[in-house]
């Protein structure tokens, strides 16, 4: 069949797209994805810890958390996935799985609702996941000085902070590039420090 001859080297990577409710996460994923963003759901059952499998019955209190994602074929052996986080940040259980092994995260912010991303930033800092902050300019307006935004968010000067347009493929591409460059530069610094 038409399988690649040797798939032993095949691997994948992921980048997390986070931010408050309605900030443009799905739009950003869709702007560069080669597939229409897909949605997958995870179901959380309350009081699930330590419950015997046989006791799991469908009428327990459950919460469904949806997240959407897109796909970029980097080359034949490497697929990059972009995972948008669930809008409601209280479902942190899903985030563990999202950030595990991720390259890093893009935190999308809307300057009209800056506070929406505070908990997200706290989470990434706690998990030591590299992130950058991308200000989604709704209606193309760059109303604020980036330094003011940085001060308001209280993120360290190393964290890249930039304007983006989630609807624009080129803009999203540049934001992704910036994140990967940042992660690479952090690694180099670390290696130099250790060596």
């Amino acid at each position, binding site marked *: 069949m038409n399988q690649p001859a040797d798939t032993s080297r095949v691997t994948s990577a992921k980048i997390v797209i986070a931010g408050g409710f309605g900030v443009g996460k799905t739009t950003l994923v869709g702007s560069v994805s080669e597939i229409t963003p897909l949605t997958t759901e995870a*179901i959380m*059952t309350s009081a699930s810890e330590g419950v015997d499998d046989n006791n799991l019955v469908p009428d327990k209190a459950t919460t469904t958390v949806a997240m959407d994602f897109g796909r970029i074929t980097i080359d034949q052996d490497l697929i990059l996935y972009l995972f948008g986080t669930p809008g409601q940040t209280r479902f942190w259980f899903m985030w563990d799985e999202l950030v595990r092994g991720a390259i890093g995260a893009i935190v999308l912010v809307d300057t009209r609702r800056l506070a929406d991303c505070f908990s997200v930033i706290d989470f990434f800092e706690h998990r030591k996941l590299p992130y950058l902050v991308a200000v989604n300019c709704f209606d193309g307006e760059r109303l604020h000085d980036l330094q003011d935004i940085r001060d308001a968010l209280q993120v360290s000067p190393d964290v890249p902070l930039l304007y983006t347009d989630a609807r624009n493929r080129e803009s999203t591409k540049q934001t992704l590039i910036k994140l990967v460059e940042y992660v690479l530069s952090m690694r180099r610094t670390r290696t130099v420090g250790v060596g």
Partner: protein
Amino acid sequence: MVLGGDEPTGSLVRPYAVTRGRTRPQLEIALEALVETTARGRSGQFLGGREQKVIVDLCGGGRLQSLAEIAARMEVPLGVARVLVADMAADGLLAVHEPTGFGDDAADETVGTELLERVLSGLRRL
């Protein structure tokens, strides 16, 4: 804890029945792990039901699919897809390519850096 054995919403299959009440996958398969149908899976002789056929077809066309894509395309919760894939991998019907990962627990720093450089040049080519 993510559990998948509960009532699905408008899905192709009834997950609780499909996984026979088991909700703990044998392997921890990452969301982005790529799944590939093996020759044994393609032969079609060893398949146990419609869901297995769907997965074998999805991941057998030379275009590998992640666990997340399988769940989304089958319209089943992630936990259910994970159990199905883990079972089929255990039966040799699927091969699962786990990601290298980039966190502190990543296996090899050099491998991670090389992979990042490939991602970067791939993004620049887009």
